[in-house]
């Protein structure tokens, strides 16, 4: 089933949106917000799922315009610079302000950082 992608332009003069649609051959499934929330470990309320889903879908549809660009034989760029090979000596250094780090731990029982029990995923 072909998927429709929207091109989105916001015209500042007229404060209108121009949408045009195009179909592509891609068959990527649309975002499943509850499943994504579980993967990202964020407990969404049902209200939030309802509120976010259309907005997320709209943005991901908009991302889809990259599918139509011819990118054969273009290397992906990891980041801006091309400088490599900046390595430092493999000598550990002690961070001095340990007290301040430990003071930030919400639940601390020297020398343990406490968490509740771990359950297996159902």
């Amino acid at each position, binding site marked *: 089933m072909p998927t429709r992608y929207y091109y*989105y*332009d*916001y*015209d*500042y*003069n007229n404060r209108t*949106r121009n949408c045009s649609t195009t179909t592509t051959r891609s068959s*990527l499934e649309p*975002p499943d*917000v509850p499943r*994504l*929330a579980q*993967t*990202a*470990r*964020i*407990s*969404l*309320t049902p209200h*939030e799922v309802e*509120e*976010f889903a259309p*907005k*997320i879908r*709209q*943005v*991901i549809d*908009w*991302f889809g*315009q*990259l599918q139509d*660009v011819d*990118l054969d034989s*273009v*290397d*992906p*760029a*990891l*980041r*801006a*610079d091309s*400088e490599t090979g*900046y390595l*430092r000596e493999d000598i550990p250094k002690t*961070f001095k*302000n340990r007290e*301040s*780090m430990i*003071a*930030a*731990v*919400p*639940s601390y029982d020297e020398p343990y*950082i406490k*968490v*509740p*029990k*771990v*359950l297996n*995923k159902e």
Partner: protein
Amino acid sequence: MLSTLHHPPRRLSRFFPANNKPRHFHTKPVLSSSQPVTDQSPSSTSPPESQILSIRHSLLSREVTATQLAETYLSRLKLAEPQLKSFIHVSNNVLKEAQSIDDKIKRNENVGPLAGVLVGVKDNICTVDMPSTAGSRVLENYRPPFDATAVKKVKEFDGIVVGKTNLDEFGMGSTTESSSFQVTANPWDISRVPGGSSGGSAAAVSARQCVVSLGSDTGGSVRQPASFCGVVGLKPTYGRVSRYGLIAYASSLDVIGCFGSSVADTGILLSAISGHDRLDATSSKQVRVLQISVSQEVPDFTSQLISAALLESKPLKGLKVGVIRETLENGVDSGVKSTVLGAVSHLEELGCTLSEVSLPSFSLGLPAYYILASSESSSNLSRYDGVRYGNQAAAEDLNALYGDSRAKGFGSEVKMRILMGTYALSAGYYDAYYKRAQQVRTLIQKSFKTALDENDILISPAAPSAAYKIGEKKNDPLAMYSGDIMTVNVNLAGLPALVLPCGFVEGGPIGLPVGLQMIGAAFDEGKLLKVGHIFEQTLQGCRFVPPLIADGIPQ
């Protein structure tokens, strides 16, 4: 009204040339721009001078004490805060630090080049003696165990950190409306946004609550608020300034940038915070020296700043400027277009050779940016699990601890971007989204390189409009993202860019400022600052002081 500088000690020679020739930064403009612009006040519209150098002169000549200066700024800060809300936290140590500078001066000891200068710091930059929240409830009251390298350098040069400025949560936004604490207002019209995500830093400098400030720029978060607030904003080359201590949003795009009320001040602050840092593996060792600099690896940017009075006509003769065609097409406010075209005329009068350049794939930069930024942020924000720092929700099991801490701690925009990023990085989708976005990044880098091989700098508006009303775009993500079209490509290419106010459009009590963006080749900040300084010092008839300032600019 700065004239001679006090002889600086050798160790500070990276900021002041060793030969100590008297330098004059404040002069009458010698050239006029052809485009009539609104005269903002009955008093003089002389160009801005460097507050940092002026403060230094006043302190060392004992005209004023650091304590007196700090008191003036603090009272102005407190007076404006109820309306502006630029600051999440104001330091309790300002007067104490000012006093220790006064003590040093009294003992005839040397003080750093930022002595007595009040610096605002965006709250996603770590400060050991103040909370650093990144605008998020998940880090409310969090005290980092270290200063960011950029903050450490400001303090080493005797700058006073006056407080932590408001931002969109974790840098995600263009208005400060997604801060979990407050919305900052634009000093030019308090019903309008200051821009974002570094809205607090821009507003604070614009309203003269501090002298200069630090912000961060991932997709335009220094440049767009600079434009909206009528101040100078600089985004350095990726790798120019250490990211150690900058709370990460998108690691391949984030940089720390500077705000000032003049190009000179912005450049001086950049000089202070730049440099290789072994604590940031992406910080660069590259030297790009544009003229004879002093011994340090970082070029002395301020030696590029030459007085307008010593300039002959056509001081920028031979400079090739490319106007990016795609930034003056449909979708850009007509007032912004005509103001930028006025800046083009001004540059021509200064002797520049202007031509139009086209950047293919320009419009693809926006979706590519948002794919990369949300993907990287979903990974970077996974560390906020409520276990080692930050707010922790009560929970029976570990997954619920993660899920509830993050649900309670993150705002809606952050949650949505994490979810979008999670989607784009999921197995089966990586090639379709993240990899393609990285390929688009390659295309954009190449097209900038071609354009900058043929031109010294490229110019465009900093944003498609001036500041809009608070609440106007809050519920429409794509409308908000569209505003970043002028800025994101520069982050994808990792290039430096300077935004400076070039005119006004209608709106607000006395008009709304519009910023011109100048883009340079990698590590070419010196050229940007030189061109920007000359442009600023010769711009007639504009005074970029917002109506919120009742008592005028400090001297």
